[in-house]
């Protein structure tokens, strides 16, 4: 039992904006009206936020492991976690090791993370790694938009069957929702091409287009009543002028719920790399008039990182552009993956536009319930640098200082210098916790109301915003004090959220022959057993 008194509480889910309020937590790790006995934390003068929720990150699985193996140079220079009584050893850096990931997230006040790209084929591996990420609660999304068995059904116009296949895969992967990456593009990559236009047929298919996949998959997610809508990485990522593709994609989503991942990478104008500019105002306007769609920023921070995405063709292009290392994976019938270490430089005009675009989106989209804090870790920057973004959002003067350091040619390419908006603490709490929790359909998260999970973070108010958000005074996870005075005190195991959607019982027998035709793995060994998941929290969906 725990009581926290005197703190200024920012709880957007309950519209509490800086009021002084006592919080009580019972032995089950939930907020209650009152407790008697137990420890009391005097939070007078301090700021209380619900624990952070990362709606889009990459922290475990085959691609992440590949990235770790590819960057030994980063391991030599990065922060090392030395083993202690309560802590395992590990390394921070661009692609932190499993245990370190948990420590770093919790150390920054985040208590829930969503691993946003898991192929079914490596789901077992991903869950094993997630079990080794302590403290935080986890969810995973399954890569679907290039799954050949599903695409074949869509091509044949068999909607019901496609829906059953998706539901079957979600349960096989023990996942929480659907991720779509470059719909049709990764499948086309296996034919040596890409899918950049929403209405052109995909290589290897006669009539199926990326637009059809987007609409059908969004409908499937709605019909299955998934708590999190389709999580979409649009076609044509990173390319100059891709704003037209993104807006076209959004039109295909009219009437559906959806979450657009890392929209910074999809909001560029211009015709080529020389004329590339930010087109965030167009995209922001769309979001401002369509409350059914949420997004995360995918903001870019200058410095070294490693880019990881299922978008294989884009990564090949990035490798050709940079001449750096390149890793490419083919995940049988399901998807692909590319890995390229990358350095964002302020002197590079394209990188400068990307940096500005991420911030612009967060500032131009009016409702913080629609746009969430993310760097698409590790693609735009490492998650442990989120406090730097918060500082940029909260201080217009600091932002101006940073803009002044960019090359002169950046003028007329970005709108950031004209934006004076500053995030309030209430808006930050919405964007880093309450908003993403609601978008993920995790009602017990990002919420300090009675009955919700007692995940919260207590900051000491400081003028240096980045310092304040990177050094919380206390972090409490499920009622347990995990960080106190900058030290990790406890490393409890988090839960894993997953859904059980309904699908026709004959789907198993439908899948078996298709599977045995083309996979390298036995059908019966393929689905992840529920026993493999540490602390599963299963949500049974209607119909099953």
């Amino acid at each position, binding site marked *: 039992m725990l009581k926290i008194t005197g703190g200024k509480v920012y709880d957007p889910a309950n519209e509490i904006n800086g009021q002084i309020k006592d919080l009580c937590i019972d032995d089950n790790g939930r907020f209650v009206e009152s407790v008697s006995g137990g420890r009391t934390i005097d939070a007078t003068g301090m700021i209380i936020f619900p624990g952070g929720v990362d709606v889009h990150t990459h922290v475990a699985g085959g691609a992440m492991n590949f990235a770790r193996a*590819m*960057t*030994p*140079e*980063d391991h*030599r220079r990065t922060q090392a976690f030395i083993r202690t009584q309560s802590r395992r050893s590990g390394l921070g850096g661009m692609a932190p090791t499993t245990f370190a990931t948990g420590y770093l997230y919790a150390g920054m006040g985040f208590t829930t993370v969503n691993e946003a790209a898991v192929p079914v084929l490596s789901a077992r591996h991903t869950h094993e790694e997630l079990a080794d990420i302590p403290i935080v609660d986890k969810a995973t999304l399954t890569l679907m938009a290039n799954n050949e068995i599903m695409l074949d059904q869509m091509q044949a116009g068999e909607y019901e069957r496609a829906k059953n296949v998706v539901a079957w895969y979600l349960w096989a992967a023990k996942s929480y929702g659907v991720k779509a990456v470059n719909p049709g593009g990764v499948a086309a990559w296996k034919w040596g091409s890409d899918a950049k236009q929403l209405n052109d047929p995909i290589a290897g298919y006669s009539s199926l287009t990326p637009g059809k996949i987007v609409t059908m998959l969004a409908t499937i997610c709605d019909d299955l009543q998934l708590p999190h809508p389709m999580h979409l990485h649009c076609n044509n990522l990173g390319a100059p002028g891709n704003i037209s593709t993104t807006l076209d994609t959004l039109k295909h989503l009219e009437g559906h719920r959806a979450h657009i991942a890392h929209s910074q990478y999809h909001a560029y104008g211009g015709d080529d790399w020389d004329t590339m500019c930010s087109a965030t105002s167009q995209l922001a306007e769309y979001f401002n008039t369509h409350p059914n769609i949420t997004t995360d920023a995918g903001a870019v921070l200058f410095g070294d990182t490693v880019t990881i995405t299922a978008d294989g063709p884009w990564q090949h292009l990035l490798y050709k552009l940079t001449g*750096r290392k390149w890793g490419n994976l083919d995940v049988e019938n399901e998807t692909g993956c590319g890995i390229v270490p990358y350095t964002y430089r302020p002197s590079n005009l394209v990188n400068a536009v990307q940096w500005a675009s991420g911030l612009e989106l967060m500032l131009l989209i009016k409702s913080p319930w629609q746009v969430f804090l993310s760097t698409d870790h590790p693609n735009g920057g490492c998650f442990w640098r989120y406090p730097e973004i918060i500082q940029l959002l909260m201080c217009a003067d600091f932002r101006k200082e940073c803009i002044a350091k960019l090359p002169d040619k950046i003028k007329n390419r970005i709108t950031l210098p004209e934006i004076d908006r500053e995030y309030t603490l209430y808006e930050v709490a919405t964007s880093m916790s309450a908003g993403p929790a609601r978008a993920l359909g995790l009602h017990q998260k990002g919420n300090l109301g009675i009955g919700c999970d007692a995940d919260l973070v207590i900051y000491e108010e400081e003028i240096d915003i980045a310092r304040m958000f990177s050094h919380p005074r206390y972090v409490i996870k499920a009622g347990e004090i995990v960080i106190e005075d900058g030290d990790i005190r406890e490393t409890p195991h988090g839960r894993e959220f997953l859904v059980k959607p309904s699908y026709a019982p004959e789907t198993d027998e439908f899948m078996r022959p298709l599977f045995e035709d083309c996979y390298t793995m036995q059908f019966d060994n393929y689905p992840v057993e529920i026993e493999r998941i540490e602390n599963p929290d299963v949500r049974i969906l209607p119909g099953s």
Partner: protein
Amino acid sequence: MPITLYLKQAPAVPLETEVLSPDVISQLSNTEIRKLTVYHGKRQVPLEEFFDVDGEHSDELIIHGDLNKVRWIGRAMSKGSITVHGKVGMHLGAYMKGGRIEVHGDASDWIGAEMKNGFIHVHGNAGGQIGAAYRGSLAGMKNGTIIVDGSAGLEVGMRMRRGTIVLGGIARDFTGLQMKGGTIILMSGAEIRTGAWMNRGTIISLKPLQMMPTFAYASDFNPMFLNVYAKQLKTYGVTLPYAASAGTYQRFAGDLSVPGKGEILVWQPA
């Protein structure tokens, strides 16, 4: 008055002594130096367990003994000097930024790896990966000079970006592997696959080399820059021929499989 260290007994497993650097030691008293931590395998032990120490407060270090298993001497040093009498182990002068290291004996692998500046002279033979980039790193040595009087091992100057390496004896395979700049001078030539994957930079050989098929013969000439190089190297006791009366250099461009803009110059005496 330099600080002199004598190895008491050869370590059973590698001893990691990055504290043996003028940057760490120059301000310390004799007692403080003796108490410095070194790693004997995974065990932390005081320096005095393996070394007798004479002198204090100096940025000149003289080390005696068979230091074959003593690693990381002079790591990241930026000033002063280290003189070794005897064999020395891996990673000597890795990441060094300045100062000089002289070895009267043989050295092992990875000497001067990823160094930024400074001077290393090995009077005996050396191992492989001289001035190289550590695994995964984009660039090896960025400046400075490494001179080895004897022979060298594999992958000399791997991914080096700038600076000079001079080898008196023969080098083994993959000299200048994936080189990005700088100069390697081979007084006695090298074994096979010299300059593989090189992007830029110059390899000069005074002996005929077995060229890879991905290097193209360009011309015979006597480049002007070699006069300047020769003059500078003279101060280190290295004689590089350059006069047209003495002969010419055959220039090979490559590695064309990358495709690279590097060059290999092979001396043809007149």
